């Protein structure tokens, strides 16, 4: 392991934006492999909530990874879609952690996860109404103002839909981006999962997505289940390889967006590093192939 003085020198090189390449979610299982082999990979993403302890191994490893690679913070706890207020104490902790690690991107979810002060540990679905739009825009504004930076908002994976919606999800996200200036994180696996679960066309969703606002793409694996009527029910499990249908949807998305940083999410049944790295290389190859076949402004 390198000395701290060398780390400080290296840190200066790793500032700047995240490249339009593949990255992966950084898992504790891979800390040692990454630091020992310094793999050729564009960037890493972490959930900031996992690094809000005072010290110990998480900070030891993240600071060393950060010295060598750009990182992105992908929050799971701001509960942007809560009817209640944004947790200001949590926002302050997030801001302090950003000052320490200087992530090149910050993203959160179009979802809610807290209610009456209790944290529900899941990304829960929202009805796309004018009221929800106002709530989400107010919270995105508040977060961007507090953090002093632009955030990306991610389309959710959903298992149910609401009887009363006034906007489509793509129109809703486009309107949030237009009103707040935030960017969008297009999770292609979530599109596939939600489309299957809620009976809409994934290709049409990608075609309707406000592509100009996309600053990052997520890819991940999902699990197959069935609902009470034996209809397919896909679970956004992040526990396996990206499926072929999702790779195809990724190509379709890239034909509409600019080349953007793309993340492989694999959070459960985490594989050995070479398996995860191979998924990232696959995404890199698709990005490259897309770059040579589509000339973008």
């Amino acid at each position, binding site marked *: 392991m390198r000395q701290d003085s060398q780390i400080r020198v290296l840190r200066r090189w790793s500032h700047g934006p995240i490249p339009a390449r593949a990255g992966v979610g950084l898992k504790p299982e891979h800390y040692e492999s990454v630091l020992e082999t310094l793999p050729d990979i564009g960037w890493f993403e972490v959930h900031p909530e996992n690094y809000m302890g005072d010290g110990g191994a998480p900070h030891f490893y993240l600071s060393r990874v950060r010295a060598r690679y750009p990182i992105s913070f992908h929050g799971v706890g701001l509960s942007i879609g809560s009817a209640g207020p944004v947790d200001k104490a*949590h926002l302050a902790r997030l801001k302090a952690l950003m000052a320490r690690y200087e992530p090149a991107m910050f993203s959160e979810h179009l979802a809610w996860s807290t209610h009456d002060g209790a944290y529900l540990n*899941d990304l829960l679905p929202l009805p796309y109404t004018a009221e929800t739009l106002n709530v989400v825009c107010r919270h995105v504004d508040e977060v961007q103002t507090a953090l002093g930076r632009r955030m990306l908002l991610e389309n959710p994976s959903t298992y149910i839909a609401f*009887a009363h919606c006034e906007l489509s999800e793509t129109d809703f996200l486009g309107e949030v981006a237009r009103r707040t200036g935030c960017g969008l994180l297009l999770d292609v696996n979530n599109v596939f999962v939600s489309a299957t679960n809620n009976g809409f066309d994934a290709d049409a969703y990608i075609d309707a997505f406000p592509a100009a606002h996309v600053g990052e793409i997520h890819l991940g694996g999902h699990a197959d289940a069935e609902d*009470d009527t034996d209809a397919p029910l896909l679970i956004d499990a992040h526990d396996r390889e990206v499926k072929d249908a999702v790779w195809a949807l990724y190509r379709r998305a890239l034909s509409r967006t600019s080349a953007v940083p793309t993340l492989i999410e694999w959070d459960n049944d985490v594989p050995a590093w070479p398996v995860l790295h191979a998924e990232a290389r696959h995404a890199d190859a698709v990005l490259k192939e897309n770059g040579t076949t589509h000339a973008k402004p």
Partner: protein
Amino acid sequence: MPSLEQNQSAFVAALREPRQDPPSFIAEPTPRSSLRRFNVYRNNVYAGLIGVLGARYPAVQRLVGDEFFKAMARIFIDGHPPHSPVLIEYGSGLAEFLRTFEPAADEPYLADVATLEWRMHQARHAADAIPLHASHLIQLDEGSAARLTIRLAPAVSLIVSEYPVFSLWRANASDEASSGHQTFSGAECVLVTRPDLIAEAVRIPQSSAMLIAALLEHKPLGAAIGSVLAVDPHFPLHRTLALLIAQKAIAGVASQDETFEETPS
């Protein structure tokens, strides 16, 4: 149409009550198809938090068995939901909960095992400290040593139990270690530290625990030693101090004359 607040209140109420139907404002792609769909959310909320508790309290889980642990954790979660998305901080109340959890009354040591596991978890995430080098202590003469106040590292804590808490924990902390319900007896004291990145638990004599407890209360070393010697004249002072140094548990010392601190370099 319910307001967003009404929507979320009803959603949460249905999440918490497994026998309740999903909220009526959920659209059903086909009639009666929404229960398993809604159960994905129920499962994510509870299975996720039960998993967090299981990873944090592996010895408690092995001692009571998976099925009991899951049922117990669910009751704990309903009474003590997390109040922050920082789940590193979740689960501190489990030991207190277990003290009065009637179905576990025949395993009265569980609460102390839970305390030990929580302290190990806290030690993993405690603030980093630069350990004081032994040479700082060796340089001191007896008189100034007595007036020293020893500052222990943030990861350091002590568990004093009337049960064989260390033996129970060690025998159940991992699948490899697991030896089930072996018969252990006697009271045990445990020192928890984090010498580098890994938290460690060490069984220590009761008199050593008395000294460390006094140091945790910031008593000067001389007074702390005196209070232990009054109870146990054969108290292993040198071994206790050597253990604290070996475990990198001493983060600084202060005397009336001067302060010794390692400064980060």
